[in-house]
């Protein structure tokens, strides 16, 4: 369905100060690909969450590592692939329990859940040294 070659690629250092730029870029790309503004903003947020996790968990906050983001555009949806090295992601399969998290005074743990609730699919993979996170968002009929 999606083209083999990404339409657009960005490669950035693992710095949180670049998150906002990526968010705005992604919003722009999603809007150009005919997603409504509100959807576009959410897709951008999902990517923010994914990259934030890469910086925090895979790169342990180191700012000199690389994060590559590929955008694959299709008239029916948008696929975003994030490629990174560092610690391979290990993710919980179960959904979050907000009340339990509050009781446990958790200050995190919402990111992946948010990604999953925004996107239609979120898939992490590790091959050799390279980890990827692939997210797809389909357009809704009316959008």
């Amino acid at each position: 369905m999606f083209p083999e070659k990404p339409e657009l690629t960005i490669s950035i250092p693992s710095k949180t100060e670049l998150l906002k730029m990526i968010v705005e870029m992604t919003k722009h790309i999603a809007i150009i690909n005919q997603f409504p503004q509100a959807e576009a903003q959410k897709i951008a947020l999902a990517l923010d969450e994914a990259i934030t996790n890469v910086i925090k968990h895979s790169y342990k906050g180191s700012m000199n590592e690389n994060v590559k983001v590929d955008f694959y555009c299709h008239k029916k949806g948008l696929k975003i692939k994030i490629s990174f090295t560092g610690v391979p992601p290990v993710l919980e399969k179960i959904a979050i329990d907000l009340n339990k998290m509050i009781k446990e005074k958790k200050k995190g743990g919402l990111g992946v859940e948010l990604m999953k609730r925004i996107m239609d699919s979120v898939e992490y993979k590790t091959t050799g040294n390279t980890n990827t996170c692939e997210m797809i968002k389909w357009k809704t009929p009316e959008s």
Partner: protein
Amino acid sequence: MKHFHIRSKLVGNIAVIYPKGHLDAHNVERFEKEILKQIGNDVVNIVIDCKELNYISSAGMGIIMGYLDEIRDKSGDIKLSSVNERVYEIFDLVGFTEIYDFLQNEKTAINKFENVS
């Protein structure tokens, strides 16, 4: 170029915090510091007025979540007000709208605290 600003004021024993702009993992520390400052001063009635908040990621939501238990243990609460539609959708997606009071504006949020105490 700062994308995120934070200020606050006291109304009696209620703190109103105004996060402004783009709140993400890059600037969440300043948001946490503000919450910690209030708790440190024994202010546990907290209104987060979001009329100028354009964006929040889970980093910011984590802070709102992480201190709620301590604050409610001290008979306080965190209430949110003036949240714009776009940001509200995000709070709603993770289920915050079932846990926190979301008020129309700062004033109704403050009133809600005053009517209880």
